[in-house]
């Protein structure tokens, strides 16, 4: 599918710009409230919303080919894989016993 140049509407661009500024003010305000673990959830939700608006409207992914959209989503999936697998490594490191060089037990000594 060929996508013909879509010329953006100035009004749409200005609305997105205003929304981005309002969301910046909102995320700053919310950070002053004590919400416990919800603080980071709200902060990330607002950031994801802002980023999506930039990608969809300013970067005009909306008007690109399906293949480009697939690439954009694939990039996010790969980012998710990197963060999830790194987190799973750090979370599960001490779930099983691993002899360390400084643990003077017979098993560790014998293997050396």
């Amino acid at each position, binding site marked *: *599918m*060929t*996508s*013909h*140049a879509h*010329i*953006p509407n*100035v009004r749409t*661009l*200005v609305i*997105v*710009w205003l929304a*981005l*500024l309002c969301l*910046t*003010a909102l*995320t*700053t305000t919310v*950070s*002053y*409230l*004590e*919400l416990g673990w919800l*603080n980071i959830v709200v*902060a*990330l939700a*607002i*950031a994801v919303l*802002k*980023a999506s608006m*930039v*990608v969809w*409207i*300013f*970067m005009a992914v909306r008007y*690109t*080919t399906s*293949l*480009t959209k697939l*690439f*954009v989503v*694939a*990039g*996010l999936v*790969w*980012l998710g894989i*990197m*963060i999830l697998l*790194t*987190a799973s490594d*750090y979370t599960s490191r001490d779930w099983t016993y691993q002899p360390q060089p400084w643990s003077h037990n017979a098993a560790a000594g014998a293997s050396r």
Partner: protein
Amino acid sequence: MAETVIPVGQEPTAEETHLRHHFATPAQQMDAATLGMWTFLITEVLFFGGMFAAYAIYRGMYMDAFASTSEFMNVVLGGTNTAVLICSSLTMALGVRAAQLSNRKQLQLFLVLTMIFGTIFLVIKGFEYHAKWVEHLVPGFNFHYPIPQFERHAQILFFLYFCMTGMHALHMIVGLGLLSYLLIQATRKVFSATYYAPVEMIGLYWHFVDIVWIFLFPLLYLIGHRK
């Protein structure tokens, strides 16, 4: 595939559209350029993603130390910079639109505005870095944390802060160079409705750099809630 009907004899020449021989139509060439640019941006997402992953792990490990650093971040300057970058994204998007409409004067105006916003961002960032040096918050070189029990772990956050904002600032500097190139080309009347791919692609890069900052601001400046 609805092709725009162009009256015979008025089709833009291959020279005007900069159409390479291996592409059938200018539209196909543009789609290929967009896909290629996004492929590059995905590598950039993963490049910054590595630092975000490191941030997530250490934040999980040393939550209290990380939260304590928010006191030493300048929210006013960070927030202003966020707004400045959002404005630069708007002017960049308007610049691409001006190029699509063959409006050279407007394109030049918006490119200059985008560069001004980008420069304001870097100047503010410079003041922030200077303040960090004065307050002894530069890890490795000059670090004395006022809260002794968090000295070591807070240093990790400041290390991430300088890596992430530093790489971001470097991308901004590269972006300013690319915008200068666009401004020169625009002045030479290279761009028009038939050929504006470089404006659009560099625009994508500029918006990407804006998105990185959209995540850096809440994650580095707004960790711990303030009173």
